[in-house]
């Protein structure tokens, strides 16, 4: 291998990514802390969720917290035993810097896709999204996502997770800034 490669950063993130199996569909998630997984709220319904680990073992999980408006959720996964991701600061990102996503697009397990940061902030008028969703702050990435990526991490070149893959608008990858996870934890701790 010659030239720059994502492999080192990707390896670090892959070890923390899990698969969510809900009623025949596949979503993604990643480890945030001991026995805690982050994913998208739209991936998990109310009730029990099965989590498949990189080694193929399955664990049953329970939704601990969910913010349906911001579309993120935290799952309790007993005896998970996987390393947590390192997180980065989405407000320190620079437009044009390289990013990658890891997830299970269309059921392809542990696939990475790469690209760059398109913008951080709300989406301009004209994007096919409801106004309230357009006005939220998004980590917008010029990289390819597909159904199954939802809930998976988007990380910088060093493998620091900066967003949670959430949706695709006009081909653009939209991720919830990773800072929303701490905000969710704080809001429920009070």
């Amino acid at each position, binding site marked *: *291998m010659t*030239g*720059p*490669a*994502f*492999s*080192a*950063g990707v390896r670090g993130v892959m070890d923390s990514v899990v698969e969510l199996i809900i009623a025949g569909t596949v979503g993604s998630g990643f480890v945030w802390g001991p026995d805690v997984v982050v994913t998208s709220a739209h991936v998990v319904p109310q009730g029990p969720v099965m989590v498949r680990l990189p080694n193929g073992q399955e664990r049953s999980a329970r939704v601990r917290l969910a913010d349906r408006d911001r579309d993120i959720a935290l799952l309790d996964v007993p005896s998970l035993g996987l390393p947590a991701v390192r997180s980065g600061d989405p407000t320190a990102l*620079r*437009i*044009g*810097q*390289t990013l990658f996503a890891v997830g299970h697009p269309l059921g392809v397990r542990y696939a990475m896709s790469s*690209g*760059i*940061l*398109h*913008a*951080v*902030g*709300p989406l*301009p*008028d*004209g*994007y096919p999204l409801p106004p309230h969703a357009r006005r939220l702050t998004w980590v*917008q990435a*010029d990289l390819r996502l597909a159904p199954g990526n939802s809930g998976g991490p988007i990380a*910088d*070149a*060093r493998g620091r997770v900066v967003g949670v893959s959430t949706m695709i608008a*006009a*081909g*653009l990858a939209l991720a919830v800034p990773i800072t929303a996870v701490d905000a969710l934890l704080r809001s429920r701790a009070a």
Partner: protein
Amino acid sequence: MPASLSSFSDQLADAVTRAAGAVVSVHARPRLPSSGVHWRDGVVVTTDGTVRRDQDLSVTLPDGRRIPAQLAGRDPGTDLAVLRIATGELPVATPGDPAGLRPGHLVLAIGRTGDGGPRAAFGAISATGGKWRCWKGGEIDLWIQSDLTIYPGLGGGPLISPDAGVLGINSGGLSRPLATTIPVATVERVLDQILAKGYVARGWLGAAMQPVRISDTTRARAAMTRDGGLVILSVEPDAPAALAGLMVGDVIVAIDGHPVQQSDQVLTLLAGDTVGRTLVVELIRGGKPERVEVLVGERPRTRR
């Protein structure tokens, strides 16, 4: 290896930062603004397709200020429009060298859609080539296609190299699905004409023609080697062709020394700076070769 990816990542982000200083947001259509490039001091270039009105135009500068703009002119043929803004407001774009592009070269598209920061997309050159005529009728000096996504609002913004040189203006309207870029040379040529006259003049003969085969006997009689040409079907009164004495039934075989067998070859020869030039037209009339000098006129401007 992670160090080199990080430095590559930094290089891309640096290129966006540097080039974005000359990228503005253009408000010339409902809802979503498009992007534009501060090409010369006080002059912004964008795509014609994104300028939907002639009045009440404005641009948002990189510092977030929104200032008025006036339409200097547009050239639908090359999908370019030129706006004037106050001078001295922001740096001008640094041109790069699109002639050196080859498939595989990495490129970035930059845009600005309001008072936020710049927006960027990344990809590689897919195909390159020489002069071509786009479906809108204009001549584009280089064929530059890339695999990057022109997201909503990125049209009219620049394609740049990783060293921040501007390679051209990205057009969402010229072709799909690949992104097409109007190269620096075409922008400069169109810009000069629009700033001088307010529009781009195109050469005009005023004759309708159709491809025709030249029979072996005619070819032998006229002592010609060409087996095809363009037969004149009609000549507009007082048009350059009429003034030069061209007649219905003449078969044009060459203009200015270039063989012509298709009408788009004539359009190509009349593009650029032919208005006011005298071109030699070689033709067959009544089975005999003739040479006629035509003073090229200016294509009448149709109302948009």
